[in-house]
């Protein structure tokens, strides 16, 4: 485990808090420890009346290439009931998925329910975790080189919340991302309503700070009360139900069985390692023309 997987700072003068994911050697994939750190910092930020906006960004060329599957097994084993038998119990899988990702204490739920205005700097790969960051944050500023998607859905099936994606981009576009797994370019993401602003990569941070200051000029009472009104409205739009369903569905991910002729991603990870499995999966997909230009 690297010593620092994310850095945190607070600028009281501009009322802005910053979260910077720094695992560039892993393309800022989010592991359990990093997710915890982010949640803990959001707890602190939520209790700090000086802060009105939170900026989330990643070090290096990518925002985040996804969930770091390297610690998937330990996530299950470490959960209550996870080590009673040789294979983690279903309750351990549920608890692990809930507490780390989709449940009230999980990373996505925590970010979505932050009481401050949350602003994302999206660049390079914004895959899976990166995509969900864009959906959970209030505002997203994207560099022209950003791409959004969830390639893992094509290998294993869609296992995360779909309600935010559908509410942002529409039902058929969401399904397109589910069943063709070709990431969207930043300009597509802007067209579809996933991204709010598109800027050259070297202007990304400056634009994000400008927007954060704009938000910070709104009265605090206005921001916090609107966030709570938003939480009420997210429930009306079924986001709570969808997160609860995502907890159940995602916990069944490791129960997936592959038909004899299917590419068994999980077995390939075990056999040849994660990098090799991803490469094999990509190569296989590249052979199929997608009908897209």
């Amino acid at each position, binding site marked *: 485990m690297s010593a620092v997987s994310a850095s945190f700072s607070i600028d009281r003068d501009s009322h802005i808090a910053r979260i910077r994911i720094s695992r560039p050697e892993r393309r800022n994939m989010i592991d359990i420890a990093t997710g915890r750190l982010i949640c803990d910092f959001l707890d602190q930020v939520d209790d700090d009346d000086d802060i009105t906006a939170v900026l989330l960004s990643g070090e290096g060329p990518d925002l985040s290439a996804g969930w770091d599957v390297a610690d998937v097994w330990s996530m299950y084993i470490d959960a209550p009931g996870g080590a009673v038998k040789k294979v983690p119990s279903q309750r351990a899988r549920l608890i692990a998925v809930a507490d780390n990702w989709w449940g009230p204490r999980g990373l996505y739920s925590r970010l979505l329910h932050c009481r401050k205005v949350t602003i994302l700097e999206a660049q390079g790969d914004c895959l899976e975790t990166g995509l969900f960051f864009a959906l959970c944050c209030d505002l*997203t500023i994207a560099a022209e080189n950003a791409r959004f998607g969830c390639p893992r859905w094509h290998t294993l099936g869609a296992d995360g919340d779909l309600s935010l994606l559908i509410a942002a981009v*529409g039902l058929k576009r969401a399904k397109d991302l589910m069943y063709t797994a070709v990431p969207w370019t930043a300009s597509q993401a802007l067209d579809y309503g996933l991204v709010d602003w598109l800027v050259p990569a070297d202007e990304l941070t400056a634009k994000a700070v*400008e927007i954060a200051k704009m938000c910070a*000029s709104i*009265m605090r009472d206005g921001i916090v*009360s*609107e966030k709570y009104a938003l939480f*009420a*409205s997210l429930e009306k*739009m079924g986001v709570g139900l969808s997160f609860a369903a995502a907890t159940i569905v995602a916990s069944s991910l490791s129960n997936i069985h592959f038909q004899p002729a299917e590419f068994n991603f999980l077995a390939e990870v075990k056999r040849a390692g994660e990098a090799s499995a991803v490469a094999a999966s990509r190569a296989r997909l590249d052979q199929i023309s997608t009908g897209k230009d």
Partner: protein
Amino acid sequence: MTRYGTAESIAAAPTQVLYEVDRATGVAWITLNRPEKHNAMSVPMRDRITDIIHEANLDDDVRVIVFRGNGKSFCSGNEINEEWGQRRPHERRRTLNVSYRYGTDMAWGRLGFSQAISRSPKITIAQIHGYCAAAAYFMIACKVDIVIAADDAKVGALEARFLGPAGAAASVHINRIIGMKAARRTGFTAMPMSGVEAQRLGLVHECASSDRLADHARNVAEEIASQDPGALLHLKGRIRAAEGLMDTSVPSVTGLFVSHHLQSAPDEMDFWKAAKEVGVGGALDADKRRKGAVDPRTGDEGVVAL
């Protein structure tokens, strides 16, 4: 039903909200007529809108209801700092009862004028030009069936910076109309959308240049009104039913968050205090000069006169 307002504001409402029915075409016109205030809506004006819609709903000749505004703007929102019959002036910021009446009964709630618009069995249209801000944005433009806008209209929760977004990000209706992310953007930045931008997002059905807007809206309204009246009622009825199933209403608690209940922090401008001292226009100017304030409307010739 109790009607709130001062004797003066109640007396003025019939001239500030005009109503005419073109019985030949089946189009009813609701015209906001308070151009000196960018058609800011007083409490009696909003009550009058509710009354007119009820009248139009019962009028078999009316198939389509169009909202429009005289003067430079469609409407800048609700009148602020208004005396509307609170027992004591400070009550507007202090008691839950009065806030809930103002925010819910009179606005977001089932008795409010915005729901009178969204629940009309007739097809509703808004013809938008100039500013369409604050309540005009989320209680008229986002409640009608079809919006026709001038290319350069300025639409959005422009008051959010000094009064709070007041439901602009949270409204389920707005989330369904412009998308979940754009709803948060417009609420949390207070930035206006142009008519063209609002069309791209899905709020506006069609745009026209300012000089063509009135004709264009009339054509659309008359074309729709030429359809079979029974068919239109059926169509609107099933759309309304589907909206109910989807649940497009605003969380009713949002009514509590109307600006009157919010307080400014010591380092924030007290909009109400400033408005009392230097008037609403002066308070808006003071807001622009605040430390750290980034004005999202930079480049505009002026700000919306609420």
